[in-house]
Structures are given as C-alpha cells and as structure tokens.
C-alpha cells in the first residue's frame, strides 16, 4: 500500500510544474494547459486524502472541480479567441491594455 504522503508529494510536484508553466510560458493556450495541470494536481491530493480519511467527500469535491474546470476552459478559450481576433496574437505579454 502506497502511503498517502507519496501521493501528496506527487501532487505538490505536479502543482509546482503547473505554477512554473503559468509563470514562464507566454502563449496563453499553454498558460491554460498549465492551469489544468495545477487543477489535476489538486484533484490527486483530494482523492488521496479522501482515501486516507476514509470518506468520500474529497471525491465529491473532485467531481465539482472537474465541472468547474470544464466551464473555465470553455469561457477562457472563448476569451482567447476574442483576444486573438482583436490583437492577432495569443502572447500574454502583449495583452497590456490595462497597463498604467
């Protein structure tokens, strides 16, 4: 039986990879993919803790996280498409309309 700490470490590692992707990449689509990695790292943590505690609440939360991720992906990609129409780029460094 794999101890729960190993799952937590794996989740933390995946979350760190996702954070690095959000901070480093400039392509908006890749930023979104990194956010998906982070969401999944949290899902893994929730499922592992759900089994460690012995009830199913964590798995129910994962169910809702997946639903919210689907809604987020739909709206986010629509925003990316709209921005691409306006600016002809998906480079997040060039989305600087709000720069002071």
């Amino acid at each position: 039986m794999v101890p729960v700490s190993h799952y937590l470490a794996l989740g933390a590692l995946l979350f760190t990879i996702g954070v690095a992707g959000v901070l480093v990449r400039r392509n908006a689509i890749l930023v979104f993919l990194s956010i998906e990695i982070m969401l999944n790292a949290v899902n893994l943590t929730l499922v592992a803790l759900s089994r460690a505690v012995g009830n199913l609440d964590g798995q129910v939360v994962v169910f809702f996280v997946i639903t919210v991720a689907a809604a987020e992906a739909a709206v986010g990609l629509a925003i990316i498409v709209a921005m691409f129409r306006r600016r002809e780029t998906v480079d997040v460094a060039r989305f600087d309309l709000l720069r002071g």
Partner: protein
Amino acid sequence: MSGVELAFWVLGAVAVGSSVLVVTGRNPVASLLFLVVSFFALAGLFVTLEAHFLAAIQILVYAGAILVLFLFVIMLLNLGSPEEAAVRLRRGPAAALAVLGAVGFALILFLVVGPLDTPAAAGPDGVTGAPAAGGAAGTAAADAAGRAAGPGVAESGIAADPAAAGRDPGAAGGAAAGTGPAVGTTAALGSALFREYLLPFEVTSLLLLAAMVGAVMLAKRQR
C-alpha cells in the same frame, strides 16, 4: 514491491515527465498531446486510489472533452509557423513515456481485472462499481412496477438507493482496507452526490449554463 506500489511509481513518473514536456514544449499541439498522456496517468493513479468513477470521468471529461476543445482552438487560431505545423515530437522522451505508460496501464489492468477473476469477486458488475445487490433489488422493483419503461426506471433508481446507502460504510471500509470485492465506490459516490451534495450539484448545472452562454457570447463575431 507490490503491484500497487509499482503502478504508483510508474504512473507518477509518466505524469511528472509528460507534465514537464507540456510546460517546456515548443509546439502547442505537442504540449496538448503530452497533457493527454499526463491525464491518462492521473486516471491510472485514481484507480490505484480506488476512485474508479473519477478515473473514468477524468478520461471522458478531461481527455475527451476539454482537451479536444483546446485542440480545436489551437487549430482554429493556426498558432505557430506553417513549417512546424506537423507535430514533431522529441523522440527520446516520447518513447520513454510510451513504454512507461504501457507498463503502467498493464499494471492497472492487472490490478482491476485480476481481483475480478478470483472466485471472491462479485462478477463483472464490479467493473462498473454497481453493487450486485442494488442491481438485483432494482430489477425486482422494476418487475413489480409492471415493466413500464419510465416508471420502471424511476422505481429501480429509488429502490437501488437505500441499498447503496446501506452499502456506504461497507464500501468505504473496503476502500480503506484496499482490497476485497468492493471494486470502486461509484454507488457510494452517487449516494453522497445526490443526498448530501444535492444543492451544489444543481448549482453546477446553473454554472454550466452560464459558462455556455458566456462562451457563445464571447466567441461570437462582433457586428
């Protein structure tokens, strides 16, 4: 090292390796395909945690729906220069991930199907996580309802519910013990979702409706 531990290490390595390739990749399409690999590995990890329903949802919703949406957008926007439109994967990491992933899923298959072959298993019903007792009760209730299609289905759902609820501690215990004929916790998860978490579940449908309307409005060509 047991099969579960081996599966954990192999699938964890696949998940981390493919996630690194997602973040470091040059081509968005290649990054997306590596993310699919990562999500499959995570689904395998969910199986090692006895969350079979979430593993199936992970593949259906994430790999099947969300990532296809991403792929559509990437190809719609035609990102990247035309000469690198063809997906060129880096051979070494891709081959290593393929071998590791195949080993991991062979282990998962062994873990899930292996217990079902033993006489102690409840039968193929266990794959879907539907308890044989609940299914039998539902069928009996449907028979009592005169086999009318609509009422019969509703009746079987209601009849299966207490059976699933009664099974809830047992299923959790089986999950805690790690083995046993209680493959998956789908019935217990459904019971929790439609009893304690009914209101959040319904609010979720509102969220999806709002997201759908918002996405259509945002992506619509402005006049």
